[in-house]
């Protein structure tokens, strides 16, 4: 299996001498032959870069720090908000509004003062990724979007760093180790990203709070095994976790000889524009070509106050309707095609969802179906809660 022995300069290992305080701290590692003094020194000499200090990044950073990884880098440009706290266990209620890096630094330093923490307050981009990755031995991918996942993969392949991968959605997760010398990379598994909008993000689809814990800890385990050179890594295997069924399955992964990133005839020899790669390529033609008619929450309020004859169409899911609603008529977006006959095209229809994305699709669909008096509520019910009715809960 891939280990770091060939990439780690022996000088760094020789310098990673443990103090008596460290020996006491890592005693439960040191008494296991699979780790021992030599393994703990490898951990101390190791440099791991976490991309993101969110759901996956939290358990990753916490456990790697506790385990004695000597140098931990974290790349994040985000600020803690209330919706993070259900799963991002690095951050507490008191951290809301702080930079995630500052919040993370407090917790990690408190767990292990021997940690050399390097924080990078930036978005990972094609311009900075290679330079950044070269300063580390392993990259752990805890990002939350497709463009960054392809960027992390390609930068790992180009710099020869293992990519410890984890990804989550609702009740399911995936984990693997990509981009080792002989193993497959993320592009071998998924040559192309899904078209925008087809796969919902956690912000749209939700995620069970413990799931990043399960998957992030698997990533941390794989990272530590790579450093120690112990066990069987997930190289060449995709672990699938289904938390609802509590089933762990694994699928075989193969290195694709035709892979554009790591195959025999590589076409990706430098980093590309990943927003464009994930945004334009493979994008479906818009359902409706024209500009979508929109209405602001302020205009909607005026119309409601004036008792105008308007029909509010809520295209969210029933469980979202229970959280808060505008007393609209509920038809989830997915049901709209088969329930369109319930709508009266002669009335003025204002469609809304949580943020305005799904209702834009609904409006485009209705326009195409011949509805003329239909508007999309810009910003959705969230904008209403922010600007019209502050007593309404936001979610």
């Amino acid at each position, binding site marked *: 299996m891939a280990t770091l022995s060939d990439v780690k300069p022996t000088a760094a290992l020789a310098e990673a001498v443990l103090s008596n305080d460290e020996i006491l701290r890592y005693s439960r590692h040191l008494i296991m032959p699979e780790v021992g003094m030599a393994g703990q020194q490898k951990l101390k000499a190791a440099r791991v870069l976490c991309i*993101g200090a*969110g*759901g*996956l*990044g939290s358990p990753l950073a916490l456990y790697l720090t506790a385990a004695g990884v000597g140098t931990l880098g974290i790349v994040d440009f985000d600020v803690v908000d209330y919706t993070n706290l259900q799963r991002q266990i690095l951050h507490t209620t008191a951290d809301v509004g702080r930079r995630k890096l500052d919040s993370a630094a407090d917790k990690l330093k408190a767990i292990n003062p021997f940690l050399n923490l390097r924080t990078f307050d930036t978005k990972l981009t094609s311009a900075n990724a290679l330079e950044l990755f070269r300063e580390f031995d392993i990259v752990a*991918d*805890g*990002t*939350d*979007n*497709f463009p960054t*996942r392809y960027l992390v993969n390609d930068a790992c392949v180009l710099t020869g760093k293992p990519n410890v991968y*984890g*990804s*989550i*959605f*609702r*009740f*399911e*997760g*995936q984990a693997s180790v990509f981009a080792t010398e002989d193993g497959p990379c993320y592009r071998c*598994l*998924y*040559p*192309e*990203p*899904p078209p925008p909008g*087809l*796969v*919902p*993000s*956690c912000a749209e*689809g939700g*995620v069970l709070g413990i799931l*990043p814990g399960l998957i992030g800890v698997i990533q941390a385990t794989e990272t530590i095994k790579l450093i120690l050179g112990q066990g069987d890594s997930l190289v060449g295997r*995709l672990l*699938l976790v*289904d938390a*609802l*069924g509590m089933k762990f*399955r*694994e*699928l*075989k*992964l*193969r290195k694709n000889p035709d892979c554009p990133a790591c195959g025999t005839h590589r076409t990706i020899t430098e980093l590309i524009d990943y927003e464009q790669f994930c945004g334009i390529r*493979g994008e*479906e033609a818009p359902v409706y070509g024209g500009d979508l008619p929109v209405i602001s929450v302020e205009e909607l309020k005026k119309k409601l106050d004036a008792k105008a004859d308007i029909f509010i169409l809520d295209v969210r899911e029933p469980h979202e309707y229970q959280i808060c609603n505008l007393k609209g008529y509920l038809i989830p977006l*997915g049901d709209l095609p088969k329930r369109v006959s319930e709508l009266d095209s002669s009335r003025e229809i204002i469609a809304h969802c949580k943020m305005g994305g799904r209702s834009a699709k609904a409006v485009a669909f209705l326009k195409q179906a011949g509805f003329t008096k239909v508007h999309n509520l810009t910003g959705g019910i969230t904008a209403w809660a922010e600007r019209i009715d502050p007593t309404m809960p936001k979610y």
Partner: protein
Amino acid sequence: MPQIQIPSPLRQYSGKQASVDVPAKTVGEALTGLVSRHPDLKRHLYTDDGKLRAFVNVYVNDEDMRYLQKEDTVLKDGDTISIVPSIAGG
């Protein structure tokens, strides 16, 4: 009868079912049978010109069908087909 495992992002299009049993001799037949029963799944699995989407991976037991005979892969009794789309949450 082969069983097709539906991942959670796609269950909203399969009547909330986590798995669907479809009588079929090949992977292609099984997938065709699946989308004929659950037509909403079709545009998530296939492109407009009828090709399986590149971000949807199909496994027969634990093997990627791209490394078997793709849609012509012959199914045995008790085989499990898994649809594994890419997810990106973190």
